[in-house]
């Protein structure tokens, strides 16, 4: 079955979550990946959207974080202050899914500005829930298309903390959650080196070359000792994903 690089990325991300996970889901790719997981290998996964909907099971992918279907299919819907206090800060979320405009190899995220904060070249939407998602969830998965514009040596602004500018700051601040542990792109899967906290490529999507990966990364790419080939999306996965749209 033919599939797009976007579909490969979504399917790879969906495989990273399991039935027991409680996922804090952002709109777009994370929402597609988590719902795909729910429709395939993780039927009992709990999906939480920051609009307050807990345990939601949409039949189609919502455009916004608060579409009516998210509430109609939820176990319960709570206020936004409660969502951020009892559910996110309360430490109940196993996996937070985030994207970025700029990302560095330590998983630090910029969604605020390109350029200087006060005189930006490009003003981006901002952090939203991400600054606290990044530190309150037990683990962070990043999903993002690769490009040298987005995969940079140093982000212009740390909207949401990864492992910090040198990979040490998260530990030094005493943040007890794990932080970014996985990065799923349209080209490959990266995992975090437990020592240096840099991303290293652990699996390459079918047909993608190491050259392509380096060409779309603003730092020198490191590879794990053993690099797998990501299994291509199977028919079940693609059918389920396409049914969501």
């Amino acid at each position, binding site marked *: 079955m033919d599939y797009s690089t976007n579909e490969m990325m979504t399917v790879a991300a969906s495989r990273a979550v399991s039935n027991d996970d409680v996922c804090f889901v952002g709109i777009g790719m994370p929402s597609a990946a988590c719902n795909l997981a729910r429709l395939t290998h993780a039927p009992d996964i709990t999906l939480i959207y920051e609009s307050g909907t807990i345990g939601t099971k949409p039949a189609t992918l919502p455009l916004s974080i608060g579409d*009516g279907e998210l509430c109609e299919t939820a176990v319960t819907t709570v206020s936004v202050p409660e969502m951020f206090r009892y559910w996110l800060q309360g430490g109940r979320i196993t996996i937070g899914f985030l994207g970025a405009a700029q990302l560095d190899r330590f998983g630090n995220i910029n969604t605020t500005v390109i350029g200087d904060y006060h005189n930006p070249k490009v003003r981006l939407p*901002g952090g939203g829930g991400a600054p606290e998602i990044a*530190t309150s969830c037990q683990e962070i998965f990043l999903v993002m298309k690769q490009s040298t514009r987005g995969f940079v040596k140093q982000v212009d602004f740390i*909207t*949401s903390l990864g492992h910090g500018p040198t990979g040490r700051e998260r530990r030094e601040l005493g943040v007890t959650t794990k932080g970014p542990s996985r990065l799923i792109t349209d080209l490959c899967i990266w995992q975090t080196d437990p020592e240096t906290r840099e991303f290293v490529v652990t699996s390459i999507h079918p047909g993608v070359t190491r050259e392509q990966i380096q060409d779309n990364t603003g730092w020198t790419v490191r590879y794990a000792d053993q690099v797998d080939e990501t299994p291509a999306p199977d028919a079940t996965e693609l059918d389920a994903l396409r049914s969501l749209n």
Partner: protein
Amino acid sequence: MARIVDLKTAIAEQVQSGDTVAMEGFTHLIPHAAAHEIIRQGLTDLTLIRMTPDLIYDQMIGMGCARKVMFSWGGNPGVGSLRRLRDAYEQHWPTRLEIEEHSHAAMANAYEAGAAGLPCAIFRGYLGAQLAEVNPNIKFIHCPFTNERLAAVPAIKPDVSIIHAQKADRKGNVLIEGIVGVQKEAVLAAKRSVVTVEEIVDDFAGLHPNVCILPDWTVGTISLVPGGAHPSYAQGYYKRDNDFYKAWDPIASDRETFRQWMQTHVLEVGPEVFAERVTFDGPTVTSRSDSAQED
């Protein structure tokens, strides 16, 4: 005590140029009709507070109502940028726009503190996040028991909060259901409030005892504006107009196209046009499975 008045009167009475105004609704129940009335009444120099400025503030900012916007995520959800907000901030068109930027957790906690009558909120937030370096309203305190460093932000206490709700009863009690967002907190935190509703009913008999109700004595004015959340939605009444959200991007991308659209669809009309912009779902829905079945 809540009074039921038309929207024009409500805005004229409750909102003045220079006010700090919170218009809330988290994707759901965004008070668009009230925003259009503010634009028509030519109010300016407003400090606009909203977690997700969305199209509603893009329009108000583009029409020159705002001096400052406080927000935590300034985009068109699922579509892209807010082009009028960016133009005002980056190019000062039509006027210079100041920003105060937070995270969602900070604003949700700040509204909660406002409703709770506290001067500030504390939360585990902004750890390693650079907003704390550029926003002087983000400080840190230490827990007096564990010495943990916690973020603190001032409570949000608007001059006026404006929300859209499903129903009011004749006495002025207001019902919000579905995705309730921070609307209750916004109203309780504010000095004054304007509520627009889909429907005014005789009484609320038969509701679940724990639904989100603002008692009449906590509400300023109530105005009947069916469809008043469009292109946002009102659960049980009509769905989100996702197409409009997508269509907004090209409208807002050009100053002149934007001005013309506002002229035709806001300045030259009144709140009554909102009812025509939506397709009502049919009988009112208050239970989860009922509304799921209707889809």
